[in-house]
């Protein structure tokens, strides 16, 4: 049946779920909120700059207002006076939202085991991805964002309360970007074929 439809319509139409399509769109349009407090922030800027160019992975739109962001990147140590500010920024971000804890200080406090430095932001905030390193290289941050995209594609359109109440650990079947290629191959088309016509 599906093959019949494909024969009729070529690769203009294929079937998926709303969850999978929404997750695919969310994963590839992350808007990061840079919460850079120390030297990790320099690496974060480097990851966004021309040499490493984070925009190749669909997350280049850095915004400095939390209401336009869905990914908070905490880069650097956070002191106790900063935690209420950090929590407020996190609460101001609209759902769906994710958090990357970048570097040893944001993850664990690092070498700064003093009265003022919070020993890991995950004590007070939910964190999705931890990036080790002091500071991590831009490649590590890019890998973290790619891992986060994998995670988002598997999560679906749960909101946070549903996420808390879920019984099964897995989300929907993820949107398969290779589906188009497979449809073309099933219909006997090859991308290299100069006579390739996507309609018939």
């Amino acid at each position, binding site marked *: 049946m599906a093959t019949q439809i494909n024969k009729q319509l070529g690769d203009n139409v294929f079937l998926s779920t709303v969850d999978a399509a929404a997750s695919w769109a969310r994963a590839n349009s992350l808007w990061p909120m840079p919460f850079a407090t120390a030297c990790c922030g320099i690496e974060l800027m480097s990851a966004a700059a021309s040499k490493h160019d984070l925009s190749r992975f669909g997350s280049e739109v850095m915004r400095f207002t939390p209401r336009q962001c869905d990914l908070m990147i905490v880069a650097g140590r956070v002191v*106790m*006076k900063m*935690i*209420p500010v950090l*929590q407020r920024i*996190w*609460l101001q971000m609209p*759902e769906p*939202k994710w958090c990357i804890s970048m570097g040893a200080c944001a993850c664990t406090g690092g070498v700064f*085991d*003093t*009265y*003022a*430095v*919070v*020993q890991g932001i995950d*004590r*007070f*905030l*939910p964190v999705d991805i931890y990036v080790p390193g002091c500071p991590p290289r831009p490649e590590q941050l890019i890998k973290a964002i790619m891992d986060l995209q994998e995670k988002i594609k598997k999560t679906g359109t749960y909101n*946070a*309360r549903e*996420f*808390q109440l879920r019984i099964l650990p897995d989300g929907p079947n993820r949107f398969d970007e290779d589906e188009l290629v497979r449809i073309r191959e099933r219909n006997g088309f090859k991308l290299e074929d100069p006579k390739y016509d996507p309609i018939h």
Partner: protein
Amino acid sequence: MAETTNVKEHLESKLTGVSLAWSEYRSQRRVSVPSSSIEAALRALRDAGMDQLIDITAVDMLEYPGASDRFEVVYLLLNTTSGERLTVKTHLNEPDLKLPSAYPIWIGADWPEREVYDMFGIIFEGHPNFKRLLLPDAFESFPLRKDYPVKGRGERHNFPIITRAES
């Protein structure tokens, strides 16, 4: 460098009957003044040409060998005309940790005095806006005192926890 003012004679003429302990280390002059006459001493030094207050800081001498007083408050002064410098020290003991503010003499004493209070708990009377400078207002301890543990008393963990379902 312009002519060197004779700070020592000027100070001793203004503070007659006060025991001033002068010392010198590698041509850096220091004077120790009793805390009861510190305001008069600072005013006399300002009049003698010490027109800039570089910094105010303090030392906790709790476990310092041979120390007889708990706190040492240090004023670093500079004569911007002659380039001459002077370190003025005064000593304090608990429970009387009060000094007159140097704000009326040098307006630049504003933040250094608040920082010394923030870290050591020394109170400067007569300061126009006397509150903590760096730490949150709810902080109760004075962290640079030697009897305060480096890792604190749990202040850094005293915050609400935001879970994913709540945010």
